[in-house]
């Protein structure tokens, strides 16, 4: 027969100081893990949300990012009319030649400036990005030094606001609009007119990449194969989704350091939990004896103390979750080594992440509780009763 759970709850409450201290130790461990997971999760969802499954990104052969790719206008004409490229409302192929470069903006917490991607494109490029909406202002006019900035840039950089001017290239650019693209990485970009931007950077014929829209997903895959194998074009084609998914690796340093830290902290906390549980077992020697006399088996004693340790750690896990909840939704940014610029994203403490934290705490409590529970179960009835 199992010992009722209320027995464990009451014990935890009776020794509240010890319970709270141990639980807080676990809570801090869980909080560190969750903060890191929330960061990595936020970055991943931002990058995964970017890219349309029908879009194909074309780069110069060997280039692994838009920033380092070169693409000439002539090359663009060659691929624009490939089979499988969808047509827009006006009947023109949905193909957008784009220029991507990096600028440096100064922000409050980075006086040396943070790098941001600037994308030069023509109206067809905006038409192709269907999830892109204008939050306020208007789109830039062709041939003018005007930019539209992503929502998360506006939140993080005081200089980048509607009506203000940004200095890059060879002069000032007026911010005329604010755009939103849900969670996607486009929120960290600045859009400008292709021709104006390329002449500013003296790259009128050395642009970066071409974005194509395929008629359907089968055509998209075929287009990738077709372009990749065309020796004469000398380009690499990749589905836009895959391109952004690959960039999640920029979170790797933070992710691995964070996981290392939380695992080591967990080892420390497990020892502490073990300590608390051993003390609990020692103090309740007489109780254990009594329980045995009442007919509870060794197995149920083991289960009871083990459960108590898990409960203690789970309490810590819950406190840990509460500690990180305020972080959820906070916007932050991380340097992305494939774009050499910053990708902003929102920290996300999702239910999945919370469950992971709770599971981590329970595992920690189980590791710390097993030996003390075993110790409790092994006590001889008479010896236990006689102990002071």
């Amino acid at each position, binding site marked *: 027969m199992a010992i009722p759970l209320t027995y464990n709850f009451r014990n935890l409450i009776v020794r509240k100081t010890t319970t709270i201290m*141990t639980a807080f130790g676990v809570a801090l461990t869980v909080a560190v893990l969750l903060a890191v997971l929330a960061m990595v999760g936020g970055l991943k969802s931002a990058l995964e949300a970017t890219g349309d499954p029908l879009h194909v990104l074309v780069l110069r052969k060997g280039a692994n990012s838009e920033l380092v*790719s070169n693409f000439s206008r002539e090359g663009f004409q060659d691929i624009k009319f490939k089979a499988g490229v969808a047509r827009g409302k006006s009947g023109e192929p949905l193909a957008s030649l784009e220029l991507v470069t990096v600028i440096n903006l100064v922000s409050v917490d980075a006086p040396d400036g943070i790098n941001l991607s600037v994308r030069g494109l023509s109206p067809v490029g905006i038409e192709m990005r269907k999830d892109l909406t204008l939050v306020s202002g208007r789109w830039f006019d062709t041939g003018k030094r005007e930019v539209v900035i992503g929502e998360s840039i506006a939140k993080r950089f005081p200089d980048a606001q509607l009506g203000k001017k940004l200095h890059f290239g060879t002069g000032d650019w007026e911010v005329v609009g604010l755009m939103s693209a849900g969670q996607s990485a486009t929120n960290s970009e600045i859009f400008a007119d292709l021709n104006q931007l390329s002449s500013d950077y003296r790259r009128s014929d050395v642009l970066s990449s071409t974005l194509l829209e395929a008629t359907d997903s089968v055509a998209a895959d075929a287009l990738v194969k077709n372009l990749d194998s065309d020796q004469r074009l000398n380009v690499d084609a990749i589905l836009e989704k895959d391109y952004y998914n690959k960039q999640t690796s920029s979170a790797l340093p933070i992710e691995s350091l964070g996981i290392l830290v939380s695992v080591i902290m967990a080892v420390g906390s497990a020892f502490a939990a073990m300590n608390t549980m051993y003390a609990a077992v020692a103090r309740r020697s007489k109780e254990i004896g009594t329980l045995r006399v009442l007919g509870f088996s060794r197995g149920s004693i083991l289960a009871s103390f083990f459960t108590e340790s898990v409960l203690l750690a789970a309490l810590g896990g819950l406190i840990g979750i509460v500690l990180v909840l305020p972080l959820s939704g906070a916007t932050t940014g991380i340097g992305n080594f494939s774009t050499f610029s910053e990708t902003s994203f929102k920290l996300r403490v999702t239910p999945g992440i919370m469950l992971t934290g709770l599971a981590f705490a329970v595992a920690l409590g189980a590791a710390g509780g097993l030996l003390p529970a075993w110790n409790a179960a092994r006590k001889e009835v008479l010896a236990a009763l006689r102990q002071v």
Partner: protein
Amino acid sequence: MFRHLPLMLKNSWRNRRRTILTILSIGVSLCLLGFLMAIYHAFYLSKPDQYSALRMVARNRVSLAVPLPQYYGERIKQLPGVREVSVNQWFGGIYIDEKHLFAQIATEPSKIFLIRPEISIPAEQKKAFIGERTACIAGRALAEKYNWHVGDRITLKGTFFPVDLELTLRGIYDAPIADDVLYFDQEYIEQGLPADQRGFIGTFDILANSTDDVPRVEKAVDDMFRNSPYQTKTETESAFALSFVAFLGNVKFFLLSICAALTFTILLVSGNTVAMSVRERVREVGVLKTLGFTRGTILGIILGEAVMVCLVGGILGVGLASLLVLLARKGAIFLQQLQHLTIVLPVAAMCIGIAAMVGLVSAFVPAYNASRISIVEALRSED
């Protein structure tokens, strides 16, 4: 106080399991704290060595990804206080496949040994490297990693340069830092580029005459190009390296907040243990008082025991951290500061100091309460 050392030792050893668990718990947490503090120290507090202190890096103000005109080098060279200038171009090519990452830097072979005097290489290898356009030299660590020997062919596939390089290894050098870099002649890239892309490079390495000249040169270079289309940002070699760390996010804040969380955790663990053991010994305190021990002595004995246990944990932690540091060195390709990460003396002292302080702080409340309890009450206690 030290008179009672044997008593403290005996007391702490009475509940062996608890003491060991506490030491392990504190040791593991302090190991992490020591490791993170070592990283912090390496990033923000360590002084550059005598060679590095004389070197500066000039890059495009906008971004490292935007190049500078090569003729800037000549103009920088003419500034007072500048001894030598060399181009430094990150090639970022692919060797075998994308997983084999290492630093490939295009430079001017005749100047690199002036700018980096800490590089030591046999004279004939040096001569061979300078005399041949497709030659390269590699650091000992890198050469050992790929089992390269002098005379080997190394092929690098260009990524952002539309050029593939067929290099011949002409030398293997030794250096106290950055001994995992491949250097080759920048002219080799230049020749493979189309005419309209030539004449641009990534950064300039600048060697100053003396450390006093460094801040002056930094300012002079940036001032000189302030009104040109390619503005520069010049900073010391170590500041330049730090900008990569800053790129990863707010690392400083990240490190400090984890350190704070850790210290607090240790405090909780230690406080909990001390409280537990004091609670169990209230009656003993009564006996000690009956025997004539003063309140102060009792306070001292309990505090001393806690500090002792924490100190042992601290020493264990520093030991473990030294092992952890060895692991970290292997993972650091781009962050020079981490390649020789060690638990330096100030970090070790800080760790042990934190351990002692945690012992004191965490034990104070239970010890104070125990020392104030009246004899009658203490003797009557049932715990």
